[in-house]
């Protein structure tokens, strides 16, 4: 049993999904507890795997008893073990926080929603543990299918159209990735990541391999929402239901960044990507443009949901630029930023969900006085906002620090300027919301919601489960920040140094 945790971490939410689907027809009240048990199993397995990897290094697990390259292999090393913990924890905390939102937005279909949610989490965990290129495609498609369905359940006017546009672009992205895997298979005859990595140096001069890399890369970029391939992102994430949004927005794009780093460092190798291809300056430039474009478009929004979606676009630019500067600091910054950004975005979307649940409106101008009526939620927003700006001791500061160091060391001055610029714009964004929320408009002295100036403020907070989840994530933001040093030293640095040696 001890050796089977790599399979169990994927099986636990999968079996829970099937059980919830069957229970939906029998007795709907069992769906939610079974879903929680499934996600709890995933969290437990990820913790177990973390300690196992820290003790004994990379774990390789063969499915069906067939050794690679014939069979499929699951590999857990330092890079994905942290992400496994992140994904399973975010999924579990979100499930806890979303019970009332699901009931508010989709009253009859809770069981089916929980099933597809669990399938989404299964897909993400599967993408993280797999060591086989085609298996990654299949799991990517499971994740995408589940997200198409989840994102279309929101605003009935605009969500289906937004999700359909996401379908088109998502299919193009996944098909490009499949085409790249096909080229790799023609050239090397194998689908296992390590096998391909060992066979590639002999044929690395051929154009087919570079075309394979470019196809895989563009496919992954479409799926992660890198400017200018991000056009599906704002609409899809703005009109989605709250419970789905909170799990898809933080996790999906970050797992795609993981896939990109995995392709760069493990499959194609550092020497090929950085020394033979020599496109890194262009890509770092593209990342910087993404940062600036995302920040400026976020500034132009009047709706809180769209603003958060454009902040995601900006953050993806950080990670792509950091990964492609080509030195250890930048890559460490990018990997650390995956974890930090997952937590920060999750915290922001939790705040958003609370506001939607209590008030139902998300335009920034309508948020006045919220500080009085929802103090804990806004405290969480301020904490997450400080993390996005990059203020110590929250975790955002540390990853930005590494990214800045990497950029300076590599001489990528455009990237460094973009980083500083976007920090300033994030400050403007956060404080604009804080200002509207804290200082209500002067005309409303005897306001009908949340009285001020002498009246007792009506505390109209979100339910305790949502607040508790927000609290956990807030503590997580600070804890990851304080422990950044040891996380980098013991987990991220060995992987990056090994990959870039």
């Amino acid at each position: 049993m001890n050796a089977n945790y790599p399979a169990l971490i994927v099986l636990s939410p999968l079996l829970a999904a099937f059980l919830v689907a069957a229970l939906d027809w029998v007795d709907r009240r069992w769906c939610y507890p079974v879903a929680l048990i499934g996600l709890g199993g995933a969290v437990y397995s990820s913790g177990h795997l973390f300690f196992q990897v820290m003790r004994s290094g990379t774990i390789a697990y063969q499915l069906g008893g067939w050794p690679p390259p014939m069979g499929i292999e699951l590999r857990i090393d330092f890079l994905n073990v942290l992400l496994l913990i992140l994904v399973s924890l975010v999924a579990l905390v979100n499930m806890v926080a979303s019970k009332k939102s699901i009931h508010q937005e989709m009253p009859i279909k809770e069981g089916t929603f929980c099933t597809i949610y669990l399938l989404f989490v299964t897909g993400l965990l599967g993408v993280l543990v797999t060591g086989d290129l085609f298996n990654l495609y299949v799991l990517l498609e499971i994740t995408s299918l589940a997200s198409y369905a989840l994102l279309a359940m929101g605003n009935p006017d605009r969500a289906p159209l937004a999700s359909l546009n996401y379908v088109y672009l998502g299919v193009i992205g996944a098909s490009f990735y499949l085409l790249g895997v096909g080229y790799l298979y023609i050239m090397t005859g194998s689908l296992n990541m390590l096998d391909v990595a060992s066979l590639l140096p002999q044929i690395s001069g051929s154009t087919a391999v570079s075309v394979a890399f470019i196809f895989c890369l563009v496919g992954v970029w479409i799926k992660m929402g890198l400017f200018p391939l991000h056009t599906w992102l704002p609409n899809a994430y703005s009109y989605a239901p709250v419970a789905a949004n909170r799990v898809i927005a933080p996790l999906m794009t970050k797992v795609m960044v993981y896939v990109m780093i995995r392709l760069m460092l493990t499959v194609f190798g550092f020497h090929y990507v950085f020394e033979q291809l020599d496109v890194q300056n262009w890509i770092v430039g593209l990342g910087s443009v993404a940062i600036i474009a995302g920040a400026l478009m976020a500034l132009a929004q009047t709706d809180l949901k769209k603003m958060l979606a454009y902040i995601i676009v900006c953050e993806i630019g950080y990670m792509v630029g950091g990964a492609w500067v080509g030195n250890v600091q930048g890559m460490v910054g990018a990997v650390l930023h995956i974890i930090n950004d997952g937590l920060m975005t999750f915290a922001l979307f939790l705040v958003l969900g609370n506001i939607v649940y209590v008030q139902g409106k998300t335009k920034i101008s309508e948020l006045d006085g919220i500080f009085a009526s929802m103090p804990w939620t806004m405290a969480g927003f301020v904490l997450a906002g400080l993390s996005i700006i990059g203020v110590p001791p929250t975790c955002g500061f540390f990853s930005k620090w590494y990214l800045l160091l990497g950029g300076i060391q590599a001489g990528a001055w455009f990237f460094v300027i973009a980083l500083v610029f976007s920090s300033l714009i994030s400050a403007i964004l956060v404080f604009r919301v804080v200002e509207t929320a804290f200082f209500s408009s002067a005309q409303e002295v005897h306001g009908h919601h949340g009285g001020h100036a002498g009246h007792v403020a009506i505390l109209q907070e979100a339910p305790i489960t949502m607040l508790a989840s927000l609290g956990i994530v807030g503590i997580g933001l600070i804890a990851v920040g304080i422990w950044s040093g040891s996380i980098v030293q013991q987990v991220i640095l060995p992987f990056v140094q090994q990959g870039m040696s």
Partner: protein
Amino acid sequence: MTAVLADYRGYDTMFETVVIFAAGLACILLLRTYIQRTRGREYRHIPTGIIIHIQDPNKAPKGLREFELIDNIWVPHDLIIKTVCRILIPFIQIFSLYVVMHGDFSPGGGFQGGVIFGASLILLAISFDLRTALQLVSEKTLGMLCALGVVIYSGIGCLCIMLSGNFLDYGTLSQILPVDPNHIRALGMLGVEIGVGITVMAVMVVLYINIASEGRHHQGL
């Protein structure tokens, strides 16, 4: 080829089945509504062939036994279609079972057999009536069958874990079945193919029913 599909890359095939399952569930999630139609229903008097349209959905014609409920796109003269399909459908289903079982030796396998079986049920829904098909295989049965197929697949895999092997390592099944370890792989593959066939069949029918009736399950094509 089924050996490659179900044994070497059995993990991929399991997730392929999960993809189909997810598509069926997504269809139910997106489309299924429980709002009753408000346009009224149409009834046809069987002895004379006169069609009446009743506006109020709660009322029914007097002497209901002589009337049958029809779809608003009903066309007469379908006796030939109904009889032929009624004869053909069991044979199609037997053929689909044959295709599932023979996946190891000839072109076939779980997916193909499941699609053929699902097609036979869709033929029933097209030639007769969506309501007739739903009376024979209710929504609850289809939902349970969807889940049952994938549970069989991953259940066989988990059984292999519990018998101290890796996931989907069919060789360990020889500890419970009295067959030699080489043959047990073929039996394991047969088991998972059956699971795949069940899920594919149920999801095909679910997809057809939900898309054709726009989620309301009142009438089809």
